[in-house]
């Protein structure tokens, strides 16, 4: 089973990478860009048939390691 996990900074948390990327885009002439947020995107293969169980495991992995829940939130898609 394949999982796709998106991890992004929570609203209100400053995103230095996003800001710097936005500035860089502006200086390249992409001036219509207004806001940039950077996140992580993790693709996982997991040996698991049951989507619900896969989802639960993914949640655990995010809470324990993949995301820093103090500042990040995540979403899980199962394919």
């Amino acid at each position: 089973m394949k999982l796709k996990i998106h991890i992004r900074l929570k609203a209100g948390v400053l995103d230095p990478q996003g800001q710097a990327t936005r500035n860089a885009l502006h200086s390249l002439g992409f001036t219509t860009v207004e806001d940039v947020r950077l996140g992580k995107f993790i693709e996982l293969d997991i040996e698991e048939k049951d989507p619900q169980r896969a989802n639960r495991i993914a949640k655990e992995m995010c809470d324990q390691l993949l995301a820093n829940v103090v500042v990040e939130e995540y979403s899980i898609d199962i394919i």
Partner: protein
Amino acid sequence: MKIAVIIFPGSNCDRDTKKAVAQTLGCPPIMHWHADVELPKVDCVILPGGFSYGDYLRSGAMAAHSPVMREVVGQAKKGILVIGICNGFQILTEVGLLPGVLMRNKNLKFVCRKVWLSIETTKNIFTSRYRKGEIIGVPIAHHDGNYFADEYNLKMLQDNDQVVLRYVDSAGRRGPDTNPNGSVDDIAGILNKGKNVLGMMPHPERAVDEAIGGTSGRRFFESIT
């Protein structure tokens, strides 16, 4: 005073820290491999700088799950001293012993240079040999030193006198040009509530030798004895 320095795969300031402890306190620390769960009985644990697990995924995230860290957290809760330097600081926030998180430097670049720090408080063991308000020059070397905490935690840190170090200029002034990484409130180092856990981005172990980097970091080590 018994001190242990933990070595994670990818730690690279472990030898420097060992040298600094030996040089300032006269006795070498125990060097403890992270996979050896049985943490020796010590009074102080130092998590050294470096790139544990390459800092892949997130700085300090994987080291925080290393077997030895459960022990360190347990011992810290019982009151032993814990110092996290640079990557060690990142691990301490990941493991929850310190609030907040260390994000990518504001300009996205690694930065290695001497910075000026003000000693914001001396009401804790780690800075007890410094003067409050003293300005010291200590090297930094990091990619992820941009400290962030939400307003609630920031207020707690301030109200409870947990901010130990701030970035300043040589005259003690704060400002955007003196903050090398964009950290909130110019924070360079903090304590936990119990004031037995210290996390700092600057490297005191790089400032204990007159011939190399000066000696302004010595008292961090001397203070703990």
